[in-house]
């Protein structure tokens, strides 16, 4: 309809003319803490920096249930959901070779061999034990 067309053009030109949106912060909302704390915080000073060719013992296995769910998602072909769960697991424990393995598996099931390979290669940096490392190596060939 003619009127609608005119209206649309008018609306469009309005948006084109109005300057881009910007936001102003509220000065001083939530004050910044003063204490430097670096003298107090000795991050993991107790943990020796030695792990040689072996994964750091993971802080927690809280992500295990996520891996199980991701497995189920992969099996029913919901790769997006599986990857979302695996990425959440990875954020919880970025050094887990098992999570990398799950990711490589999912990429591979999806048919993305390039990603499967790259992910497995990265996972190899974190694997421990022959079985785990070999499983990852399987995706790098």
């Amino acid at each position, binding site marked *: 309809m003619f009127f609608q067309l005119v209206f649309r053009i008018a609306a469009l030109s309005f948006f084109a003319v109005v300057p881009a949106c910007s936001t*102003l912060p509220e000065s001083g*909302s939530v004050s910044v803490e003063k204490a430097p704390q670096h003298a107090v915080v000795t991050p993991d000073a107790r943990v020796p*920096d030695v792990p040689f060719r072996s994964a750091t013992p993971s802080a927690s296995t809280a*992500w295990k249930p996520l891996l199980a769910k991701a497995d189920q998602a992969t099996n029913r072909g919901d790769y997006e959901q599986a*990857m979302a769960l695996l990425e959440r697991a990875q*954020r*919880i424990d970025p050094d887990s070779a098992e999570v990398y393995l799950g990711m490589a598996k999912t990429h591979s099931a999806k048919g993305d061999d390039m990603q499967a390979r*790259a992910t497995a290669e990265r996972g190899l940096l974190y694997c421990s034990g022959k079985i785990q490392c070999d499983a990852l190596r399987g995706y790098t060939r």
Partner: protein
Amino acid sequence: MLRTSHLLLKLVLVSFVVGGLFVIYLDARITATFNDKMWDLPAKVYARPLELFAGAPLSPDDLSYELDVLGYRPVTSARNRGEVSRFRNRFEIYTRGFDFPDEREPGRRVLIEFSGDRVKSVSASGGGIDLMRLEPVRIGGIYPQHGEDRVLARLDDVPLSLRQGLMAVEDRDFNQHWGFSVVGISRAALSNVRSGQVVAGGSTITQQLVKNYYLTSERTIVRKLTELVMAVLLELHYDKDQILESYINEVYLGQEGRHSVHGFALASQHYFDKPLERLGLHEQALMIGMIKGPSLYNPQRNPKRALERRNLVLELMAAQGVISPEQATVARAMPLGLNKKRRIRDSFPAFLDLVRRQLRRDYRDEDLTTQGLSIFTSFDPLLQRKLESSTTIVMDQLDPRDELQSATVVTRFDTGEVAALSGGRKPRFAGFNRALDVRRPAGSLLKPATYLVALERPREYSLATRLSDAPLTVKLGGAKLWQPKNFDLQSHGDVLLYQALAKSYNLASARLGMELGLDSVIDMLARLGVEQGVPRVPALLLGAGEYSPMDMAAMYQSIAAGGFRMPLRSIRDIVDANGTSLKRYALEYDRTASIQSVHLLHYALRAVVREGTGRGVYRYLPENFAVAGKTGTTNDGRDSWFAGFSGDLLAVSWIGRDDNGSTKLTGGSGALKVWAHFMASASKQPLAYRMPDGIQPQWIDNRNGYLTGDGCPNSRMLPFIIGSEPTQRTNCSPRQSGPKSGSGIKTWFESLFGGGG
């Protein structure tokens, strides 16, 4: 006579047709827009949710801050959603719950106990909880040009007294009329005359909605007529509840900075920091009263006038039986009860800026500002607080006169997610976002690209290759010459490759780069993620070009991740207004450099902080906390850079002046301090030593790079790509067999940086 009536008939017909067309047009406008986009809903931007589980590296104070930012009320016993009680290292939290893109996190009462800086246990009345997450902090919105924010309310959520009070004041016959009310207009006129002031307007709620929604505020007959017609049409198409609900969400109730406050639900949060359902009568009356003049009766600016108006509304409500006279009396005695808390919204302008830019690659502005999208980001308020604190503390020490600027990008390099960002020294002020927008030479921050090209040619180069640091002259076309200098203006003779990088020797680095070829260095920068602003000139080898801290974060991200390039992501998921996932920004690894070569580069970057230009980091970090990094200084100290990573975080810091003048700082005396101060408070994990396949450590003589043995003079163990070991050997025989036995490896690791300290 006949002719005249003919003409008249024609005129009447034409005006009917024109009028009819106009009505059809108005009708089309109403049905087209009212249905699917009742209101423009700006996209909401969320921080990452805080994950809670036994063993989580989190301090009680960090949890306390997160809850504070989320607006939890400290109480002695958490009985309602949004309350927390803390007793030392024990938190009782009644969470609010949240609909995440993948699943719903229920609201529940949980007990969190800490042991030191780790979560010891997470439990609910039913037993232990493996894993849970708090709702994410809302850090801002993507607003349309006119700057509106909105929180939608369903009619069922609106207290009855508020609905009835609204009608009592604004439109007494709302449930009877057809869009306009002759009775209403005359009654309004009468009561205005009687009280001698304008207490009520003649427009119905429907008319006001039409006016707010479709029309300008000019006062002409045509506009008034259009409003009437549209109001009637609206009543024809929609029932009273729909119209009332729209009105309740549309009504304008003041400004919050540049954003206008529309709708009772948002106003309720803005003025009282409460959801609509929990408003008292006095608060409801205040909001109803504001409709007539949102700025005139703004309780923050004109408290006295607002109070009078509120009490008038309460009187009207009592007079019409919405509330009892006793209720009115009690409510009149109440103070205004305004929210004193400042809001956190848009307090992180630099990060929001990054999110917006990433969004605009995939979405139109209009969709972002109208569709009510939820945007889940990787922003970490705890890291941001530490970054802001470190920036402020260090910059105030370095430059009390407040002339220098600073910017830092923080990522979690395992996933390539940007976690915190400061775009200037005053991070809470929007403005020039230096983290994304400065374009500066990077000095020695670029050098690792040259060294990585060399290390990818294991037949020619290893960490122990001898490089000449003798003076160098490069012909640049014409009669021009390029003669780089070392920072100390000295030449250091022959040095091992890893030492040249650790001590950031310009002559050795430039000579190496010229040997390898500028194109191979440019290619390496591109592979690592730096594709813009790289000039094809020899000075590139010492950092010439135009780079932002974000560019450098991309480069060091690839290095930290072991030679895997991944896009720096700030957004995880985008979900539409119905909770359906629209887009997920997936993690993707792209291997762009050999893992083994990057591993060797890591060694050299560790040497930077142990025995090279970056030693200053250990004035902040514990001695045994392994990190790797690189300093960068540009001509006349215009830019001070530091880039580096620990086991969990990568950060790139920059200090410079907006006028590009000298800072009188080097990378080591400036940006390094911001970086190290931040890492000391934020990083939870030192850089572990993970040796990939195909690497073999060897003892070498640190002076000449020859193979030697354990216990020999100047012996030091370096990692080599198998087959790239030096062929020459000192005549010192090894004390013990080799690095393969367990004790050998241990010794090797301990002696990794034996000369450092």
